[in-house]
């Protein structure tokens, strides 16, 4: 058992040591240029022992692009089952490894990572995730969210932002994109009272890697939601992926924080800096105007009413989060 105090002090190797590690994700995969799914997969696995980790993956962009038979980008054991069940699949594997450890067939439990997009998690995968968290399996669920079912062509998911245009929630002459606010998946995960839940971003890669290591060190389930800007689906130039992620942090639309034991909220450095100096918080318009999926909020006419609603919702959540962090 790892105590919450020990968890807070988990450290990852220095950058100069990590750069000497052989990538657990090989080059040659077919993710779109500029897709930070590659960044996330690389960083998350870089803080694991490649001889003692197994990866389970839900159907989605990252899974498909990294494993087109017989080309696999994974240099660690990897298994894909179906779309909505990576948490259940990882649960079964975890139980099997436990049995093997007891029988002396395996020296110790490996780190187990379950990767899934918002597609395979927010909606169709929610039951499977909830069951696994409730049962307390020792694994980390990393949901990379690009806010839509991107792999099948940018369809709306429970993680899609309000007013974002997707192919199943298009911005038409009557309806301006998706009408619902995104589902609060982090709160749902935290409600299971697992020891560690966190949000992360490729714009804070060291923070992300530290969080993954913490999550893996938990003796039980842990959940991380990682922001994953998508050049294709969000419609921005591919070199700006990390910039857009940074904007998510700066506008407080995707704040970085951790939740220990389902009740202790801690802001991470970049978001803490904004809480300390509120003038650093950027208006949400900065985030929206750079992405083609929000184009209809600006052209043919600027929808200040909708942008204001979006801002109000962001502010409400940000204020509430600060309260939870006792700030």
């Amino acid at each position, binding site marked *: 058992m790892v105590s919450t105090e020990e968890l807070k002090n988990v450290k990852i190797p220095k950058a100069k040591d990590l750069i000497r590690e052989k990538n657990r994700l*090989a080059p040659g995969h077919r993710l779109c*240029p500029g897709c930070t799914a590659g960044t996330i997969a690389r960083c998350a696995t870089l803080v694991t022992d490649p001889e003692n980790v197994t990866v389970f993956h839900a159907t989605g962009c990252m899974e498909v692009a990294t494993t087109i038979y017989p080309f696999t980008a994974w240099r660690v054991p990897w298994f894909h089952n179906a779309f909505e069940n990576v948490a259940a699949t990882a649960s079964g594997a975890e139980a099997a490894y436990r049995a093997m450890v007891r029988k002396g067939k395996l020296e110790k439990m490996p780190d187990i990572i379950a990767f899934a997009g918002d597609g395979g998690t927010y909606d169709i995968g929610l039951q499977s995730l909830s069951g696994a968290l409730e049962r307390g399996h020792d694994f980390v669920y990393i949901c990379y969210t690009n806010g839509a079912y991107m792999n099948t062509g940018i369809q709306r998911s429970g993680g899609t932002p309000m007013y974002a245009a997707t192919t199943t929630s298009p911005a038409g002459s009557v309806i301006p994109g998706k009408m619902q606010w995104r589902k609060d998946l982090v709160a749902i995960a935290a409600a299971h009272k697992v020891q560690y839940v966190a949000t992360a971003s490729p714009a804070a890669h060291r923070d992300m890697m530290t969080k993954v290591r913490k999550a893996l060190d938990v003796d039980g389930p842990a959940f991380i939601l990682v922001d994953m800007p998508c050049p294709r689906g969000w419609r921005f130039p591919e070199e700006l992926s990390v910039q857009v992620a940074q904007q998510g942090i700066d506008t407080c639309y995707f704040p970085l924080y951790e939740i220990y034991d389902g009740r202790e909220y801690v802001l991470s450095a970049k978001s803490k800096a904004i809480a300390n100096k509120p003038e650093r918080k950027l208006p949400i318009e900065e985030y929206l105007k750079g992405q083609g999926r929000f184009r209809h909020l600006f052209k043919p006419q600027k929808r200040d009413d909708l942008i204001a609603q979006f801002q109000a919702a962001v502010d409400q959540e940000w204020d509430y989060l600060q309260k939870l962090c006792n700030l």
Partner: protein
Amino acid sequence: MTKQNTLSEKEMKEWIAEKWGYEKLPIGGSVPYAGSSEFFKTGDWSAFKAVVDREKCTKCTTCFFLCPDSAIEMDEEEIPVMNFDYCKGCGICAQECPSDAIEMKDMSQ
């Protein structure tokens, strides 16, 4: 744990070149080889490649971590070396480099 029952590099290359059929394909759709995607050169995707100005590089290592394609390795001086076999020319490294040490160049010129 030691590696069990994985194919050799020679076998993997053979598989790809010969396009194995049902007699030779490993059971259950498994690919018992680490990183066979290396045999697929995504560098072909774009003429643009990341080019490093070694003088400007401050060895912050950011580009190494951000590259989605594992196309950056650090040499003994901790300066990035780009692997053009796999660089898709996305430009994230150039965009994020704090010292403007990386430029995306059209190599077809």
